[in-house]
């Protein structure tokens, strides 16, 4: 569903992405791991359209979206969450989700219809709130929510568009173990008609919840394979896991 072909990107003399190719078909849970500075977030920004690659192609389905701005990619079915919570802080959980629905369904230019009359938006909002575990908090202000609940809403906003491809940027970063567990359950329960690509620091999450892993180092792909292959690879052990075995890391 999402395909990146031989992507290159440099900032001045600094090559941050070198010859990266990826393919995430529908239903796949694909993780990108790598030490800090490996270029994970840059790659994400290239895929989402925040940055333009110097070389290479990015495709959603059969469509070449390499030159598309982020909003145009989003309208093609690519949805993302952010590493740092990036929400509408002045509104409630409901306001946030309804806003995402307006954008996703493209009725932002309806200037005369009352927003409160829109039944389908309310139903969809309730369904997503249930899915992300925030049904009880629908009418709470976002700025009053706990950090973990804000992380859940972050994913909820990305889900409102009913995307084909979901990019999750460290969905569990900064979460307590309990909150992490809830987030993992949420990711496991995502519908299978969705291609999911996630960046993750948490080794446990990567090895047990992804079915394919790309290891990045200095902007290059070190290896790509199943969790078993990556866990067993010597080269990954050395560069990323610092010589320790993956078992110890977990």
């Amino acid at each position, binding site marked *: 569903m999402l395909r990146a072909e031989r992507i290159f990107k440099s900032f001045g003399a600094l090559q941050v992405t070198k010859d990266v190719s990826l393919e995430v078909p529908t239903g796949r849970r694909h993780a990108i791991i790598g030490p800090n500075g490996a270029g994970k977030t840059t790659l994400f920004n290239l895929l*989402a359209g925040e940055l333009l690659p110097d070389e290479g192609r990015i495709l959603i389905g059969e469509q070449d979206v390499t030159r598309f*701005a*982020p*909003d*145009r990619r*989003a*309208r093609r079915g690519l*949805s*993302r969450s*952010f590493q740092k919570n*990036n*929400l*509408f*802080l*002045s*509104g409630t959980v409901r*306001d946030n989700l*309804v*806003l*995402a629905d*307006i*954008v*996703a369904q493209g*009725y*932002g*230019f*309806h*200037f*005369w*219809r*009352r*927003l*409160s009359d*829109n039944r389908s938006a309310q139903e969809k909002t309730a369904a997503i709130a249930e899915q992300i575990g925030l049904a009880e908090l629908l009418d709470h202000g976002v700025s009053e929510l706990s950090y973990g609940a804000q992380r859940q809403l972050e994913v909820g*906003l990305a889900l*409102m*568009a009913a995307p084909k491809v979901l990019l999750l940027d460290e969905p569990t970063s900064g979460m307590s173990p309990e909150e992490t567990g809830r987030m993992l359950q949420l990711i496991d329960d995502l519908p299978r008609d969705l291609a999911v690509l996630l960046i993750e620091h948490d080794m446990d999450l990567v090895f047990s919840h992804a079915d394919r892993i790309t290891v990045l180092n200095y902007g290059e792909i070190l290896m790509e394979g199943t969790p078993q292959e990556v866990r067993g690879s010597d080269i990954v052990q050395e560069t990323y896991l610092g010589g320790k075995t993956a078992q110890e890391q977990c």
Partner: protein
Amino acid sequence: MRSLISFRPALAALTLITLLISWTNAEYFGMEILAEIAVLALLAMSLDLLAGYTGLVSLGHAALFGCGAYSFAVFTAIWGWPASLSMAAATLLTGLVSLVVGAVVTRVQGIFFIMITLAIGEMGYELVFKTRALGGDDGLAGIPRLDLSAIGVDLNDPGIFALTLILLVAVVYLLLLRLLGSPYGAVLTGLHDNAGRMRALGLPVQLYQTSIFAFSGALAGFAGTLSAQHTMFIAPQLLHWTTSGEVLVIAILGGLGTLVGPIIGAALITLLRHELSDLTDYWGLWLGLFLILVVMGGKNGVVGWLEAGWRFVARRGAQSKSTARRSNDAAG
């Protein structure tokens, strides 16, 4: 939260009633002041859509106001078009100008947006100031008012004119309230809150910013046609950036993003200017002091202060009620 949602329309109704009561008591000079308040309220509401709701702070809004006033003056006083047609045409023309300007200025954000709107506004001012056909620095005179004698309304009567403008403010307020309660209104506040996330969700951000710039500009142009009819004489000062600054001050003083705030701000600034200038030569100094007092304390202008006061009273009321219940329980 619910009590706050209904608080603002109630405040707007109260403001309207106050304006109407002062209208019944006003002499000739009072009518002039009321008309001035109404025109400024319309202009400040249009800026509130842009600066308060969408987060696009423009310092070139007076140029659009002036665009409406000058095109109305040209259409009527020079070309001899009827005033009704001229009002519509001038509003539409200003909307089109704003559409073009909006498409350019929304390419930049933040401080650069303020600078570029300021620059474009000053270009408009210079253009009018130097153009002899528009009267140059002498301005344009002989502008007629809308002729509503067919329905028995004589707008050349200062009282009738002021009343019409006050009612127009109420109508525009209600229309904008409806607009802001729509999906479009939600998108505007979303853009103010977090334009980057709106883009990531799939919104063509610049298209929406341009659309509200055009709409807000058309409304400013409409206010301009009323200003020209009010004074029946216009000068380039109307387009100057200091006028933009004054309108921004009105909106901030009243409360940005509250819609009723700009109406209250327009009334306060106009009254203070007239009253204080009667009392002291240093009226600007006192006005400045008043502004600082209102804006300090992190409240959102006059409306912000009133809402805080209302919340305080509501909480006190709830407390005393629960205390009463507790003592009842104890007695029972």
